[in-house]
């Protein structure tokens, strides 16, 4: 237990994290690429065709993991926001800043793929369905966080401002989801969902699980990669960066 704690504390210091990130990036990349490719190839290439929607349902292997990631990255940001507010950990603040564009990217993928999926299934690019609407609002929350951070010149101050917003967001997001559901039932009682059959067969379900896992691995890789850049650009004047990164 204390070893984990010590490790976590050590990771909180930028030079230590930078060293760890540089040495483990290839491994993370390899793992992410393997799981990601296996999941997607299995899902798109080899899983059985859905009897109702046909082959277009295969978008699920891109859409659902992206949507899951979109939400979990937000929760992740809120947790690191909380940590940075309570313990003032430097890395936690940078984590929010590095995770936000990635989260926004996956939210965008979820939105666009949902929209592309909607065209053959509903006959229109966009439907104000509860799930799509709350994902759109999530995208705006991401945009708010990115915008706020980029408009504050002092990066440490920006971290703290963004942490507050992330923590507030995690309280608000469930309320938004509930209210959008309520708004949806108010306007049109019969909702149609994209994931048509409630009980999927294991041949369809298993690749989806692998895909979700692969997306998570990919996220960890992307986050480490981007955090590394963030650390260097923030600490470029520190002596350890000069030694380790610029090599003089």
């Amino acid at each position, binding site marked *: 237990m204390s070893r984990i704690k010590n490790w976590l504390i050590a990771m909180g210091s930028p030079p230590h994290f930078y060293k760890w990130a540089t040495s483990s990036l290839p491994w993370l990349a390899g793992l992410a690429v393997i799981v990601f490719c296996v999941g997607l190839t299995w899902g798109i290439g080899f899983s059985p065709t859905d009897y109702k929607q046909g082959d277009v349902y295969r978008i699920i292997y891109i859409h659902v993991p992206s949507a899951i990631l979109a939400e979990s990255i937000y929760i992740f940001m809120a947790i690191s926001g909380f940590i940075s507010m309570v313990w003032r950990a430097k890395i936690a603040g940078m984590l929010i800043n590095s995770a936000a564009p990635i989260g926004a990217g996956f939210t965008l993928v979820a939105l666009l793929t949902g929209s592309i999926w909607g065209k053959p299934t509903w006959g229109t690019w966009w*439907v*104000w369905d509860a799930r799509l609407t709350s994902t*759109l609002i999530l995208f*705006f929350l991401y945009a*708010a966080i*990115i*915008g706020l951070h*980029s*408009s504050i010149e002092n990066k440490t101050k920006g971290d703290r401002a963004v942490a507050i917003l992330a923590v507030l967001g995690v309280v608000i997001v469930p309320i938004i989801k509930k209210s959008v559901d309520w708004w949806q039932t108010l*306007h049109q009682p019969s909702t149609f969902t994209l994931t048509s059959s409630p009980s999927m067969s294991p041949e369809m379900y298993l690749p989806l699980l692998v895909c979700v896992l692969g997306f998570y691995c990919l996220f960890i890789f992307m986050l480490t990669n981007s955090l590394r850049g963030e650390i260097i650009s923030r600490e470029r004047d520190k002596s350890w960066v000069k030694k380790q990164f610029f090599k003089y």
Partner: protein
Amino acid sequence: MTNRDNTLDWFMLVLRRDLTLSFRRSATYITPLIFFLIVVTFFPLALGPSQSLLGSLAAGIIWISALLSSLLAVEGIFSEDYRDGTLDQYFVSSEPVFILIFAKVLCHWLVCGAPIILASILSSIFLYLPSGALFALIISLLLGTLFMSLLGALGAALALGKSAILSAIIVLPFSIPTLLMGTAIMSAAVNQQDYSGFLSIMGAMLAVGIPGLCLLTVEAILLNYE
């Protein structure tokens, strides 16, 4: 000093400088864009997701949202340069102020208006705008947002050093003709009628507005220096 080559250099310098500054601070072009999309999203939330209802209101919704969001960043056109002394130095140098103003307006339009036009294509899908009217939407917004940037610069110059919302309030009443022309174009396009007449009126407004409004803005800016 002010031969033609130099004037062009001067124009390009201000434009490049302002664009560099805008791109370094991503909030300047993201904020109006996201504001636009959020406002557009609020209409289905408030009115309900019915396709036929939204489709008939789409053009108006998009136009109002575009007007509001193009005024969002307008205060920043001059305020930062005014506060940190850049305008002082530019005015003392013998380069023409008119060119400076025009470059700044153009930069505001490129950074703020052009992304809104792209977002309006997206929101035309959100709001089920009849697809035949999409071209009319783009072309009318192209002219409309440029006019709004010109008007906004004037408002920003008049309200220089005062509250940010003031410049928007000053400008909004004067944007009514643009709004009317824009929505006229849109309703003609939705009903598949000829809208070239409205379009040329708008073009004429712009042709008068670019030199006219820039000159007024020069006057308004120099007011702060007397």
